[in-house]
């Protein structure tokens, strides 16, 4: 009992430290754009962790929710003149609604789910970028949100979304609900005979995961203020989030955090210093990782201590 509380407190302290760090960093480091992107990918990686880490479904089309969030929030602001913050929240809700529409995909497993989800995200992309919808979505010509642009406020919004994503993962990690999800991931039939409502539990995880991606999309739209369909539906976003989670270690709080900071940091560092070797080094690194540390960086810590936050 007490041990559980200690773990909860460690998790909360970790989250508060990270949030405070990103709140203070802009004062000493002026590359605001990089900091924002790191937070964005941490939040996306943690959001993806909710569904991949805890239920084992690999959502290759995770970017679909991100794009839906970005577009829903933007269109609510531009067309219906909704306030920015409610629009972003509704963007998250819109992503969850798309998640509800896509729940039948959860009947698939393994690679089939990943492929179907990928296809679904591309379908959404083609609907939104369809020139016939120019009057509503601006089609392929993109969105301009410069009327509500606010660098500081959108940075802080990202901070809050990141905090929220962290808290969700901590809740999954420490609650019996999270334990039931991990049981489903291991063996859904054995989980159901342990009294777990399998369908409900994994649908909740799926929708929360979509909600986080939707929020990220909305805040990204606000921060960037000008973007095209291919910006917010770029498959690279899915792939980055997946690789960051795998690199750090799924189903933990710090895994996706470590993965994002190290890999996204390297991505920017190599990309600037020696861009000609970037793909090579990055690719090698990922291959090595899968070969030698299939359970991510956190599995190194797990050798020393059996619990990693």
């Amino acid at each position, binding site marked *: *009992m007490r041990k559980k509380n200690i773990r909860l407190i460690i998790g909360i302290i970790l989250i508060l430290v990270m949030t405070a760090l990103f709140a203070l960093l802009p004062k000493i480091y002026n590359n605001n754009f990089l900091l924002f992107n790191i937070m964005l990918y941490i939040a996306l990686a943690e959001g993806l962790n909710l569904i991949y880490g805890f239920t084992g479904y690999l959502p290759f089309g995770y970017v679909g929710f991100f794009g839906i969030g970005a577009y829903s929030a933007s269109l609510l602001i531009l067309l219906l003149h909704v306030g920015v913050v409610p629009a972003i929240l509704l963007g998250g809700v819109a992503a969850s609604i798309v998640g509800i529409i896509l729940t039948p995909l959860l009947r698939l497993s393994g690679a089939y789910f990943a492929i179907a989800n990928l296809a679904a995200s591309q379908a959404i992309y083609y609907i939104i970028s369809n020139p016939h919808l120019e009057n509503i979505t601006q089609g392929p010509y993109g969105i301009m949100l410069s009327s509500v642009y606010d660098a500081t406020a959108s940075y802080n919004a990202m901070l809050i979304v990141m905090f929220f994503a962290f808290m969700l993962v901590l809740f999954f990690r420490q609650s*019996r609900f999270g*334990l*039931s999800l*991990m*049981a489903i991931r*291991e*063996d859904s*039939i*054995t*989980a*159901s*005979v*342990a*009294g*777990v*409502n*399998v369908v409900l539990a994994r649908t909740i995880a799926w929708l929360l995961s979509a909600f986080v991606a939707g929020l990220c999309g909305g805040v990204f739209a606000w921060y960037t203020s000008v973007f095209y369909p291919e910006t917010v539906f770029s498959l690279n976003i899915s792939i980055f989030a997946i690789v960051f989670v795998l690199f750090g270690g799924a189903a933990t709080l710090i895994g996706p955090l470590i993965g994002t900071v190290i890999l996204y940091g390297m991505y920017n560092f190599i990309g600037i210093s020696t861009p000609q070797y970037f793909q090579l080094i990055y690719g090698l690194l990922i291959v090595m990782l899968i070969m030698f540390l299939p359970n991510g960086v956190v599995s190194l810590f797990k050798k020393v201590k*059996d619990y990693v936050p």
Partner: protein
Amino acid sequence: MSLLEVQSLESGYKILKVLWGIDLNVEQKERVILLGVNGAGKTTLLKAIMGLLKIFNGKIYFEGKDITHLRTDKRVKLGIAYMSEIGIFPNLTVDENLELGAFFLDSKLTHQRKQQMYEYFQDLLSHKKALAGSLSGGQRKMLGIAKLLMSNPKLVVLDEPSNGLSPKFVKLIINILDDLQNKEQFSILIAEQNIAFLDFAQRGYVIDNGKVVVSGNLSDLKSNNIVKKAYFGIEN
């Protein structure tokens, strides 16, 4: 009123009918064994009772309540606990496995039951933090049984608990089940091929090709020619 009552149950997989009208009942605190060769339909029957398969026809009652089309997790909450041949989560720790066994109980009760289980199974206590997959075959069965009893079930349904165990461990499992049943007073329905379980039970059913071919109490079963021939190798 029987604890569990199965009436002319027909079930199977998609379009393949495996059970052709099974009648079976389990009384309070009773030990019932389900005998049958491979492919007879033992596992199918247990899965149908747990709600893991579609019921084509017939009824299942638990404590007089019709549960024929109830979802699996709701049946578990009513007090039916099931151990499949696997029964545990290999990639979770022993402690987490136990916690999942009482998934729907509140945390205080869970804690109590966990202590109780560690008392029954001292061996598990020393492996509390270990991944369940790292345990030996016998220990896994112990964990499976402990996990099962976590929820304080009224009916325990076991699918071939002797599977993959040495005769020595089979005896141990029987002794443990005997002891725990006396302490906790649950009913047991066991599907087995291993005849060693016959003396553990009070009553039994022999199924073949999805039908009950023989049923009755222990002495009836032992004196039955079909059972003699199939399990003891005696022809008369």
